[in-house]
């Protein structure tokens, strides 16, 4: 069971921001390989075969926080596009997006490739899965850094810096979890 909370985890107010090019690039953290949807679905999928209460708890909770990040990215893209004219959309390279989705959100990467489950894995073995999760957090961190380099808008940078920091914290928690699972598996053997 999940509950929706009608409040963003981090505030987004980009309606007056004119960096429409960023909408095209930010979308990769919505539906790209190292994006928030991939993260949420990966952890919420892997949790079933985690060996301990702690690891099941952590994957459930980080997976849930990632859903809140999906919503932050969606809000950024939605607000950037909301008041854009057709001319601005064409100039920002979003004509293809407009043709297929108008101003709707859609799970793609920055070049329009649709989200695919091949971005993620559930190996059914906690050491392998947690290593994938550690790598995923690092890849997401780098993507946020790349996106920060691509804009001059302080408001966009600030939100991306928050999301980048969350990847760092999740990496730390997954690392602790890996040590705990390794210990638990040694004791079992």
């Amino acid at each position, binding site marked *: 069971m999940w509950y929706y*909370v009608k*409040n*963003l985890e981090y505030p*987004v107010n980009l*309606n007056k921001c004119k960096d429409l090019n960023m909408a095209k690039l930010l979308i990769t953290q919505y539906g790209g390989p190292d994006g928030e949807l991939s993260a949420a679905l990966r952890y919420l999928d892997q949790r079933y075969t985690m060996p301990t209460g*702690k690891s099941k708890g952590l994957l459930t909770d980080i997976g849930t926080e990632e859903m809140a990040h999906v*919503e932050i990215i969606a809000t950024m893209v939605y607000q950037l596009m909301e008041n854009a004219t057709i001319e601005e959309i064409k100039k920002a390279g979003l004509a293809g997006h407009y043709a297929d989705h108008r101003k709707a959100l859609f799970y793609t990467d920055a070049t329009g490739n649709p989200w695919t489950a091949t971005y993620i894995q559930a190996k059914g073995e906690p050491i392998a899965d947690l290593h994938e999760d550690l790598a995923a957090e690092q890849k997401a961190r780098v993507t946020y850094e790349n996106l920060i380099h691509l804009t001059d808008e302080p408001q966009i940078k600030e939100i991306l810096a928050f999301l980048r920091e969350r990847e760092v914290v999740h990496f730390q928690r997954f690392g602790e979890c890996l040590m705990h699972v390794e210990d638990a598996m040694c004791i079992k053997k």
Partner: protein
Amino acid sequence: MNQREMLNSIRVYQFCAVELNLFLDNFPEDKNAKEDYNKVSCKLTELISAYEKNFGPLTNFGSAYVENPKAWVNTPWPWENCSREEE
């Protein structure tokens, strides 16, 4: 506090709760973190119920402190920019 300020202060405590929750998943016996988590949860409960009395539910499926189905659908959604309300 107006609606926006209240939402922002709820957001601050929600974030602390998320952060402490993840830490406590790995270290459920940590005394300081448990104390902080209790304090933050109490404050959050207080802020959310005060908000909901004034502006409508923040959550759904029967879990709001104050139910108000009309306000649930009519108050702005998180992706709708609040700067428009100020104008």
